[in-house]
């Protein structure tokens, strides 16, 4: 099995064929934490989750307990679980949904009780019908046993959970866009302030939006306590973290690891090193929105939020995309920028027009029609989306999608400028 401590993937590794069923879930101690939570007060639950140091696993990395504590007093309050996993390189939530849906459901119960929620929604991206079916089946099992519905676990607490399928839009992973989508609107992000979900969320009521992996950690925390959870990692990065590793590694997949191991360990030990004996050229540490890392500078950095931030990038959704030395980085960058251009919601000028323009310039460079001025032009377009090209990024936009498109551009400019210029001067891709 794994050399590292397991919270989220324990059951699915130990019960490969039926980890998603309620019988196995309960055999392995499941739904005990839900019962415990129903006996705790909101303050106790919030305090416990805060001190566990659990941070959001969707990419933003905000303290879950603190998010809960911001919940405004108006009622009804709502919980929306963000299962819109669409960040390129990320596929960990899919595994959690398919292989251990009850873990998430128990986490939903705990989150709901803590936030006085009686109607919760699981927003699953439309391209995940199989995970949605698995979740729906698990919900049916939970309803059957009165763990959901009216008077759950014999208390007078009611809780309904509804699965809602997305329609194929990455931007709906942004929490306010997700809420808009759930309301039956275009998935456009809202202005924050004033539309912080904890204050004005779903139907303008206080709403908690949490990622699948985040809530899936809650049964462990309630059962074993905040300290035990902290002990799995360290003070700054508590608990474990699911990494989705993909690209040119020998063993792509989801790996549950504590923070603190190095990138070298992750790429070469856990993920089996680079395929075909090739060399490591560069990798994206935290999903397509993250600036890139290079072996010469980052291979021996510890994988922690702090180290990542200091190095000018982020852990984000935990998606690690590895590129070996057969990769044309200009082509890779163009592919990432194209993603953001396709997925822009179109509301605000810099993102809608800027990501398109970035894509067009990059494509020209990649195809060999780049001009001398295009390298600087690309940076200036990027600068008009994310002023100063700093990290964490500043934005001229409504949401971070626009600035995310800047990451591949600043990365190839910083680390692979020569390759960019080779395309321009050489009139084509040197890797072709």
């Amino acid at each position, binding site marked *: 099995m794994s050399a590292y401590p397991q919270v989220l993937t324990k059951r699915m590794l130990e019960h490969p064929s039926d980890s998603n069923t309620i019988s196995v879930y309960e055999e392995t101690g499941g739904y005990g934490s839900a019962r415990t939570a129903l006996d705790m007060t909101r303050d106790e639950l919030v305090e416990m989750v805060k001190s566990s140091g659990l941070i959001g696993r969707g990419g933003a990395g905000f303290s879950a307990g603190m998010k809960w504590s911001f919940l405004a007093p108006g009622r009804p309050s709502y919980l929306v679980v963000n299962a819109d996993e669409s960040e390129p390189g990320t596929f960990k939530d899919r595994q959690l949904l398919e292989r251990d849906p009850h873990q998430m459901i128990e986490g939903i119960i705990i989150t709901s009780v803590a936030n006085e929620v009686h109607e919760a929604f699981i927003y699953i991206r439309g391209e995940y019908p199989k995970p949605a079916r698995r979740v729906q089946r698990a919900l049916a099992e939970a309803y059957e046993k009165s763990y959901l519905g009216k008077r759950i676990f014999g208390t007078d607490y009611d809780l309904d959970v509804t699965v809602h399928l997305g329609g194929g*839009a990455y*931007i709906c992973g942004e929490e306010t866009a997700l809420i808009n989508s759930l309301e039956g609107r*275009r998935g456009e992000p809202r*202005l924050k302030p004033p539309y912080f979900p904890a204050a004005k969320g779903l139907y303008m009521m206080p709403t908690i939006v949490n990622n699948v992996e985040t809530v899936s950690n809650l049964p462990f925390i309630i059962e074993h306590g905040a300290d035990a959870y902290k002990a799995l990692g360290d003070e700054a990065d508590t608990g474990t973290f699911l990494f989705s590793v993909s690209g040119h590694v020998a063993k792509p997949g989801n790996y549950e690891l504590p923070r603190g191991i190095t990138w070298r360990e992750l790429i070469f030990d856990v993920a089996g090193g680079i395929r075909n004996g090739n060399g490591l050229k560069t990798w994206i540490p935290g999903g397509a929105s993250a600036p890139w890392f290079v072996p010469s500078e980052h291979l021996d950095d510890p994988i922690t939020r702090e180290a990542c931030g200091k190095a000018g990038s982020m852990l984000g959704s935990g998606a690690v995309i590895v590129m070996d030395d057969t990769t044309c980085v200009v082509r890779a960058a163009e592919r990432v920028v194209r993603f953001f*251009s*396709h*997925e*822009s*919601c*179109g*509301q*605000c*000028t*810099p993102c*809608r*027009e*800027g*990501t*398109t*323009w970035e894509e*067009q*310039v990059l494509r*020209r460079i990649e195809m060999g029609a780049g001009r001398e*001025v295009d390298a600087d*032009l690309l940076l200036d377009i990027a*600068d*008009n*989306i994310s*002023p100063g090209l700093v990290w964490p990024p*500043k*934005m*001229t*936009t*409504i949401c971070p999608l626009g600035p995310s498109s800047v990451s591949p551009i600043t990365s190839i400019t910083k680390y692979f400028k020569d390759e960019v210029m080779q395309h321009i001067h050489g009139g084509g891709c040197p890797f072709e």
Partner: protein
Amino acid sequence: MGGAPLSELVKVTVDGRELEVPKGKPVIDAAREAGVYIPHFCHHQRLEPVGMCRACLVELETPRGMVLTPSCTLFAADGQVVHTTTPVVKKAQEGVLEFLLINHPLDCPVCDKGGECPLQDQTVGYGPGESRFVEEKRHYEKPIPISDLVLLDRERCILCARCVRFADEVAGDPLIEFAARGNTTQIATFPDEPFSSYFSGNTVQICPVGALTAVPYRFRARPWDLKKAESTCHQCSAGESIEIDASQNDVLRFTGVDNDATNQGWLSDKCRFGFEYIGSKDRLRVPLIKNEDGTFREAEWAEALDLTARRLQEIVDASGGAAVAGLGGARGTNEDAYAFSKFMRSVIGSNHVDAQMDDGLNPRLLAAVDRKATIADLDTAGSIFVWGPDLKEESGTLYLRVRQAAQKRGVKLVVVHPRATGLDDCTTHKITYRPGQGPDVLRGLAASEGEYAAARAVLEGGPVVAIVGRTGVTEDPRLAESVAAFVSTLPEAKVLPFARRSNVYGALDMGMAPGLLPGRVALDDPDQVASFEAVFGAVPDHEGRGARGILEGLEGGELRALVMVGADPVRDVPDGALAARAFDAAEFVVALDLFLTDSSSRADVVFPAEAFAEKEGTTTNLEGRVQKVARIVAGPGQTQADWSTLEQIAHRMGTPMGFEDAASVSAEIARVAPAYRGLGWGDLRGDGVVVPRSEADQPLRYQPVDHSVGSVSAPFVLHYARTLYDDGVEMQHSLSLHHLASGAKAHLHPADAAELGVEEGDEVTVETVSGTASMTATIDASLVKGVVYVPFNQPGVPPLGRSLEVTVRKGVDG
């Protein structure tokens, strides 16, 4: 927006200057008022801010350093420090403008907006010198019609969403929306569901580029060629503030002016585009005299005036002034109406005058009701009560204001009407009833009985503002007054009695109603009458007839002659057949009109009249607000203002009225009409003046009376009400709008249709005691069973009169 009470002031520093600003006010507006302009596109003062275009970014000082934030969504709070001209801000502005221009086509030479284009202007002021974009711009088929009146050019569109937000938030017509996403986002309408909102023209005005253009104005002029004048809309009784644009003596365009008291910048499409009749080739240019054979011949003014004066004098000498009646005055200025009123009283000697067409309310209720509301009172009401016409059809301004109050200000709304109305989606309670049984509803509301108790409870939440009128022309006008009487029992209630036509309130204020003298004076008020006698000579003391009585009198011979000023009774009086018979029977009819209408063509002498925008003067709206109308073009041919024509007739009858120009008429009104005492044109700048300026100036304070109208019950009743577009004179000659009239359809409840064996689209015949008409049937589930709704005055349909009882049968009468 903001949400905090605007009365608290906070200190906001903008570019080093400390400003005192109402808390919650958007900083972009506060800055502009302090002389600091921040570029913007999606921001509009009358729309909720969305922060989408990003052109208004400013730097805000925060504990974490300077933060770029849109100033349209930054609401003033104490201690804010904002910078609008730093290098970071300037780079952001240039960046946004460059981004907006990369896909914007170089259409300026052929684009209507050029010369009055915020994108042009702000690019010059805040944009980069040139674009660095060398890629292919996105392309769309252009322009495409999205309605009969509006064209869309998607290449020009900068996706600011002003049009979408206006249509949804303000007009309540979400027919135009964004489609697709990202850089393929575009404005769209649904196939076969065009943007046929009554307010579509507003989107053309607020579009910051030339993406939306108006069919009546497209390619007609360049802004720098236009002569402009501020004026007041004359189409409906709300008196919206407009700017008239003209070139080469042609009126080309109306635009809405933001007057917070009335229209807040918006206009219905009828108000906005309904000016084309002014320049119509069919305008009367010279006087006409009827030949023996019934045709007209052109005549000199002198001949026509002499003939008119002689004939009228003969009749007055033989039968007294009371043998002559006057109809009209509602479509002109106050000066025209005053001259008409004075002419009929002092020159002819008759009290048979009416500016309404038997389709309105008690003139005292309209002109002089006690505790009259203003439009702005709707904003601060606790609850609004609407029992009258569908405001969306008859008063766009009131409709928009009530909608805004209900949707944005949390004001409760109760609507009573025989079928669906444009406000139904924002009512707290909607009561649908059978015409004729309104009295039962009123009784139920007053007593808070049964199904009406909930609605009544809402009306206990004062202050109550009530809009009261006739729901249709078959309804007893006394019912509306009884409703007004009920309203006066509600907490802090104010009332707006509603009549639709143009300057009818001005005309009534000038005494164009039986029983009223100018300035809201009752004919049975001896002191006031005495002071009028000083000016008018004698004031006749016989009982005056209203429109219906006048027409019956002409038909029966008790009245011998009719003076008509800007009126079309054959079309506007519900019992149009009666009007036609009256004209046939009358001995002498003189008409002052713009066109040969179904009425003026029956006259003996027709004088060509000046239209709106061709004469200066004042008008009065339903609040009693007096506003100025401007002259910007000269009338065609030998047209003259109504007051001028009447003066010349009076002169030839030996009783000149003493008017030399519009100003002299106005001066006399200010001397003589109590409610208008001392009112000069100079007082009317800004948003005009609501008269009377002092309580003491209005002798008549009318208390609405509960007439205890009885219910009328019949197997089938007729709801006969106006739609915005119909076959009225001005509509007929406004070619962009005329074909938009809905056409006559008989709206039937599904159960009635089933019983009659009628399906959607079948032909049916509708018959009343006054008339018969065949038309297509349509199913309308919003009616109560036993009611048929027919839109009033539609092209090609004979009038059905004003009685409630009606029969409907399948098929066309052979």
